[in-house]
């Protein structure tokens, strides 16, 4: 179901020689995305309608639909952009770590820090990710795959350095580390856990998950 919308093409080609029309279109898209981000954070994915989003952006629903196929498309665009920034932040954090455990902890802490200021949006994303209709699209998004790849990369490096055993079952272990990282968000969202508390829990999880792989 992947396709590049004519709008995106217009947006990209406009980088070199932006026509007034293309600029206006970009501006509209940005306005809709900002409004959608606010409403998804306020009322959740289900609670925010295209009509509300259009009103918030100060335009007609028709203008919204000219830029996005539906609400799910809008949400995906927002999450996709965020996750790309998140992957960058994690990659940067990984560079500051020493050893697999430390690197993973720094990456995950960067993730919690990234979402600390926008937990309502994270909450909406988790809600969508478990839904039978919209969940698969969000979970199979390439950006989610890149986050998982970052973890796999670090485990692979750990094996290459001899820090982890050759039989580290990297694929399953990476997935479990990613799941463990995600599983702490409810504590952040509902119980107001501090960054320190999240980091402590995450460290325990990483230690337990790496322990078996440390024995050659």
């Amino acid at each position, binding site marked *: 179901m992947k396709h590049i919308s004519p709008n995106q093409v217009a947006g990209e080609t406009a980088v070199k020689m932006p026509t007034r029309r293309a600029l206006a279109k970009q501006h509209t898209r940005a306005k809709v995305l900002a409004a959608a981000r606010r409403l998804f954070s306020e*009322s*959740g*994915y*289900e*609670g925010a309608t295209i009509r509300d989003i259009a009103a918030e952006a100060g335009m007609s629903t028709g203008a919204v639909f000219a830029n996005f196929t539906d609400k799910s498309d809008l949400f995906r665009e927002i999450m996709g952009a965020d996750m790309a920034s998140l992957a960058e932040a994690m990659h940067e954090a990984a560079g500051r770590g020493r050893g697999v455990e430390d690197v993973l902890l720094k990456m995950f802490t960067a993730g919690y820090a990234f979402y600390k200021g926008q937990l309502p949006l994270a*909450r*909406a994303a*988790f*809600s*969508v*990710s*478990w*839904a*039978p*209709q919209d*969940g*698969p699209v969000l*979970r*199979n998004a390439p950006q989610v795959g890149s986050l998982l790849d970052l973890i796999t990369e670090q485990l692979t490096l750990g094996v290459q350095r001899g820090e982890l055993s050759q039989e580290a*079952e990297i694929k*399953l*272990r990476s997935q*479990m580390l990613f*799941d*463990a990282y*995600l*599983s*702490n968000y*409810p504590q952040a*969202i*509902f119980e107001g856990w501090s960054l320190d508390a999240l980091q402590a*829990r995450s460290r*325990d*999880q990483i*230690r*337990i*998950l*790496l*322990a*078996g*792989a*440390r*024995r050659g």
Partner: protein
Amino acid sequence: MSTELNGPRRVVARNPRRPARPAQVATSSPRQTQKAATRNRVIEAARELFDTQGYQGTTIREIASHAGVSVGSVFTTFASKGEILSQVMEGRLEGFYAELDRLAPHLRGSTADRLRSIYAIFFAVEAPRTRLFLSHIAAAFDWTLTSTARPYGRNERVRALLLETLVKGREAGDVDPEADLAGIVELLIAVYGWTYHMVVTEGADTQRMTETMDRQIGLIADGFRPR
């Protein structure tokens, strides 16, 4: 049970074995009996709709219509959709606990094997309505959730059983005395819940999830085996 496991979608969720609440029977006025009946019908209808349409995909209006009651009477019994789900999930615990109590004394083998057996029971209990369990997790993040609702991951009985299994393993010399048992319990609970993502991403069935959980437990157990 096996037909439920294999069927792609359950047809109708009626449970004649589900007893009325004794406390309500003892003091029942006609009005209370009526209220209990409405309550049961709403829960039955909601169980079926949450399973087939998901939590977000189901409205209170649909639940009311499916149960053959008015929207108003749903709201006199339940504060929100989240609370209805909470009651539906609570209702399944009876059978779940009975199954655990029946099998717990028969758990054998290594600590990892015991944990695998426990989780095999969890998956078997949810098997007839895997999507209902997804609703359960999704609802934890939903805006309509009230403070009375019990989202996934708060079951103290499950937590206690897992800890007990690990403590026994430590006593038997099967678990490293240095291992962080409380941390392992939290991790197991998290890993189990997140295993259900396989239903969303690849439409995995109970068997596939149970196999994956077995491997995940093995991977955790590699870390807590005595050195």
